[in-house]
């Protein structure tokens, strides 16, 4: 890391800041951002092809600097809100903590690189057993069938499965949208206007609620209901406008199936 700073190469956000601090010897809020950006662009010009990762890391840090700087330059509200003042500190502290941590990982990366280099210089013994012992070893193919081999191939060739949490407490249920559509067609003409909250009051799982919502959208698409929400996060009011329908199973069946 130190070496990078010395070579005047912008390698990452921490280097940029560190360099700013060590070169300008001024309060970070006084660092002319334009000069920093010019220096960075000049640096980029010299190393082609452009490294997108270096670029984006620089942009992140530049954005934080701009934000900090603008906070200072722009006149704030007349009465200084304690909370806001506090959040300004938080911002700096967070930046500081993050840079601190990042610096540690950058140092770790350098160490890793040295370890890898050293490890690569040592070749392991892989010759294995000599002839008489080789044949004593239990056959690795003992009990292996062609099917097991195929399964092993699939295991090796497909991305490794993600270990999941124990899901024993989750009952698998199949709720289909078409069933929900049917249920709503049954119920809505009688009630005319009802809230989504009421429609889903008997639902015990999130999936059931979601499926009912999808069913409502389906009905809305068919022009059988209107949906109205007075305010953000307010109750969704469902109004049946299709009168008495001649229900046809073919229409019902067209809704997609969802499984939860």
């Amino acid at each position, binding site marked *: 890391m130190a070496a990078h700073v010395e070579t005047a190469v912008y*390698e990452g*956000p921490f280097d940029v*800041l*560190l360099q*700013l*601090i*060590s070169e300008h010897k001024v*309060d*970070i*809020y006084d660092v002319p951002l334009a000069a920093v950006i010019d220096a960075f662009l000049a640096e980029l010009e010299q190393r082609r092809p452009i490294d997108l*990762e270096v670029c*984006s*890391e620089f942009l*992140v*840090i530049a954005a934080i600097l701009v934000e900090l700087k603008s906070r*200072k330059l722009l006149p704030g509200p007349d009465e200084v809100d304690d909370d806001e003042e506090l959040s*300004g*500190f938080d911002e*700096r502290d967070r*930046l*500081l903590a*993050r*840079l*601190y*941590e*990042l*610096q*540690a*990982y*950058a*140092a*770790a*990366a*350098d*160490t*890793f*690189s040295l*370890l*890898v280099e*050293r*490890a*690569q*210089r*040592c*070749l*392991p*013994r*892989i*010759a*294995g*057993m*000599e002839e008489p*012992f080789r044949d004593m070893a239990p056959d690795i193919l003992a009990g292996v069938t062609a099917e097991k081999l195929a399964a092993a191939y699939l295991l090796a060739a497909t991305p*490794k499965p*993600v*270990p*999941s*949490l124990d899901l024993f407490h989750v009952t698998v249920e199949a709720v289909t949208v078409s069933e929900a559509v049917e249920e709503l067609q049954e119920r809505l003409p009688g009630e005319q206007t009802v809230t989504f909250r009421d429609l889903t009051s008997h639902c015990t799982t999130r999936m059931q609620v979601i499926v009912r919502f999808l069913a409502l959208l389906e009905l809305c698409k068919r022009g059988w209901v209107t949906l109205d929400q007075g305010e953000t996060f307010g109750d969704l009011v469902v109004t049946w406008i299709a009168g008495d329908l001649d229900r046809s199973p073919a229409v019902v069946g067209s809704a997609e199936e969802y499984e939860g």
Partner: protein
Amino acid sequence: MALPEDQRAIEAVLLCAVEPVPPQLLAELLELPVERVTEACEALARGYESDGRGFTLSFVAGGYRYQTHPEMAPFVERFAMEGVSSRLSSAALETLAIVAYKQPVSRAQIAALRGVNVDGVVRLLHQRGYITPVGQAPGPGQPVLYGTTAAFLEKLGLGSLADLPPVEDLLPGGEIMEQLEERLRPSPDA
């Protein structure tokens, strides 16, 4: 001076192993307590070192194995197997460092720290087998949590995660930190 029998047996077993042999397995084969086996291995390793042998006995990825002495690298280069020595970029190494020290850790946590999207790097490290999903975080989306693998230890020549350099040694020196804090502190008129 003849070598003790347990050390001889360990030499023979490790010579024909094709992967690091855990001390527990050695103990089973020799019908000895694990501590005795570990001591014997350490004694052998010290002996090879002081004899100035061309190979070492090392504890790598949870087991003991013979490997060539690093100083002999020029002679054994041609025996190096192809396809394993691809280098990792500094971005990949830094991400690997974050996973190693913070595991189990999610992609979002790494991204938040590094300030960039890390999907590509994480995928690369996973494909190389250096990191692997080790679980899922509770909460929305149940993000996959990653940890390091035995292949990671092998790549770095480490016996276990405990051999990673301690974080304290990696944190920036007090001077740099003071400078940083100094510069980031709001000026008196702010």
